[in-house]
């Protein structure tokens, strides 16, 4: 089990209250709703008439790959080695950190540039490297902002979505003084220019560049990254060594399979036809090349994935990290990513996180859902996220993780719901009681024992007979 250092997933309820009370966060989430989400995805989707069938194809590719993962991992490793690269198999986060450290030490690295990688967040790489005296430099603008703020990303493809323009301006003003940048900038183009200039020098100085991978290709031993800024490419091209940090489920069989997945990846997340930069990397600099890294290392991390393959949660390993599920989730839209308390957020985080840091720590997350099904309906690889969340809720109940009152209430509900006669009796009595409480307006201002439901709205009181009664009266029609 991974370390749960830095997780506040256990405090989900308190996190959500803080999130809802934060005006900056709420403004950011509103911008996300206007900018990134349903409409933009839809604009991308309608341009491709085959999109729904491509989702099926994408799901099938990942299912096939996971069902044959042992063979594809072995084929991938052979191809990487044939291309002059190295594969480092790592079972745990600690193994991956030590492997990366050893490479950095051997090369005498003082600074490491990083492309955007959620796996580095998963293994707390920045903190670790900094403690070892190696400076990690995030180069994706959103990740850079979050790093300056000392926070985690709050969205897997829009890490700084919770930050307002003014907050970013403050951060740059404060942190760029040491580079002699003493003027407060307020317009995004000049803010971006300043970061470009600062990071350009860091790119050129870095000894090691670390990127994640969107896909690893068994056929060719290649890793792929998909970005819009070009930071990942500078990260991996300029230093002495390029380290790819990726988990087992990134495998795909062939370049043809990559083509299909690329067609649904950006379109689902940002609505783009294609991201600005899609880069296929295979091994180190070749003889005669004028540039490129001298070494190519793949840190191939398990961290719980091989066990997830065994059961129904194998479906979660299809995830290609597009961000569509959190863009569409009504819960995420109100509480943002930090409320989830760890690395992965939104519906995909609610399913994945309990497997990585334990259900005891993260059992609230599968409950952070209205089960509206929006996430599943937009998932490019058709992961049944609500069903998987429901199964995690059941597991949490079995493990006696929810509070006693909640478990007792559910126990009582089950007692009644599995006894039809009792259920009808209670239903009819309850409906009559609530109708009387509703009075002439037929509305309840406050519901006893469940005040949360009526704290922001009235509950319409039941009127007339129960469904069972009507069903019987109308002759079962």
């Amino acid at each position: 089990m991974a370390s749960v250092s830095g997780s506040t997933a256990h405090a989900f309820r308190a996190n959500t209250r803080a999130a809802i009370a934060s005006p900056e966060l709420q403004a950011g989430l509103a911008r996300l709703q206007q900018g990134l989400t349903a409409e933009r995805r839809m604009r991308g989707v309608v341009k491709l008439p085959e999109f729904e069938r491509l989702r099926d194809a994408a799901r099938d590719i990942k299912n096939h790959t996971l069902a044959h993962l042992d063979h594809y991992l072995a084929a991938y490793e052979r191809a990487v080695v044939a291309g002059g690269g190295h594969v480092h198999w790592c079972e745990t986060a600690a193994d991956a950190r030590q492997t990366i450290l050893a490479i950095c030490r051997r090369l005498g690295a003082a600074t490491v540039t990083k492309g955007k990688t959620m796996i580095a967040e998963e293994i707390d790489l920045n903190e670790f490297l900094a403690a070892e005296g190696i400076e990690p430099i995030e180069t994706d603008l959103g990740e850079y902002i979050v790093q300056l703020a000392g926070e985690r990303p709050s969205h897997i493809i829009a890490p700084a979505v919770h930050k307002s323009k003014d907050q970013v301006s403050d951060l740059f003003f404060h942190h760029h003084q040491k580079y002699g940048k003493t003027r407060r900038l307020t317009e995004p183009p000049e803010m971006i220019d300043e970061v470009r200039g600062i990071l350009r020098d860091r790119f050129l100085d870095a000894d090691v560049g670390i990127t994640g991978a969107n896909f690893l290709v068994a056929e060719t031993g290649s890793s792929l990254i998909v970005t819009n800024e070009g930071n990942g490419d500078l990260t991996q091209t300029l230093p002495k060594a390029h380290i790819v940090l990726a988990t087992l489920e990134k495998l795909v069989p062939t370049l043809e399979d990559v083509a299909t997945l690329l067609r649904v990846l950006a379109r689902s997340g940002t609505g783009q036809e294609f991201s600005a930069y899609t880069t296929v990397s295979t091994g180190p600099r070749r003889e005669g090349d004028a540039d490129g890294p001298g070494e190519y290392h793949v840190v191939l991390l398990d961290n719980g994935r091989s066990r997830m393959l065994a059961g129904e949660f194998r479906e979660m390993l299809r995830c290609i990290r597009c961000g569509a599920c959190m863009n569409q989730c009504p819960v995420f839209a109100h509480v943002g990513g930090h409320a989830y308390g760890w690395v992965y957020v939104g519906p995909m985080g609610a399913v994945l996180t309990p497997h990585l840091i334990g259900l005891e720590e993260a059992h609230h997350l599968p409950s952070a859902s209205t089960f509206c099904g929006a996430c599943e309906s937009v998932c490019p690889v058709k992961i049944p996220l609500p069903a998987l969340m429901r199964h995690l809720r059941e597991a949490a109940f079995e493990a006696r993780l929810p509070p006693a009152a909640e478990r007792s209430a559910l126990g009582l509900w089950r007692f009644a719901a599995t006894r039809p006669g009792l259920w009808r009796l209670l239903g009819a009595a309850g409906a009559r009681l609530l109708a009387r409480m509703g009075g002439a307006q037929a509305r309840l201002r406050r519901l006893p024992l469940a005040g949360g439901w009526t704290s922001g709205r009235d509950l319409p009181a039941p009127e007339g007979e129960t469904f069972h009664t009507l069903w019987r009266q109308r002759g079962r029609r």
Partner: protein
Amino acid sequence: MTSARERILGQVRESLGRREGDGSAERAAARIAARAPNLVPARAQVPAAEQVELFLRLAAEVQVSHERVASPADVPVALARYLASHNLPTRVRRAPDPALDALPWASQPLLEVQAGKAEPDDAVSVTGAFAAIAETGTLMLLSGRDSPTTLNFLPETHVVVLRRSQVIGTLEDAWTKLRAHGEMPRTVNFITGPSRTGDIAQTLYVGAHGPRSLHVILIED
């Protein structure tokens, strides 16, 4: 003492319920060997002339500008005109590509053209391309002796000299052409527009870490 590799693969096999001789190894090997396309969208499966127009239209949608010229000999003058009209420096770093070597650079005495990889203060780069993909308006460049990768990312302006015959339809066509070319290069860059970011307040700005401008000079060969 088993290695991490053995333990991970062992756990994968156990989780999958793998049995020797279940045919799975053959299925995986066959899929890699077949390299079979999955569903390929119809959009770019059109005649070559339409592919060129589709490429230019989709590239324009992601802020790629272009100019058409009749022959390779017209490229230097088109480049000089583009740089002048955008108030860009006339010092240019170009890829050490034989096709670019052959162009009549001397016809434009104001251009200062040097071949090689990009240096930190280079403002303008000129490269060829391996292909252009109509389906997404994407340029495809391979790293190698003739085409340093840094030219695609360090300068603020990237000019790509493309021949009409290099425009292909789909991503699958790109893989086919790549395999026919030879072994996988260190880097394959698919470039769809200039560098961009939406990370400040969810508003899109062009020009993040890579080029701010991407311009195609299309030779109508």
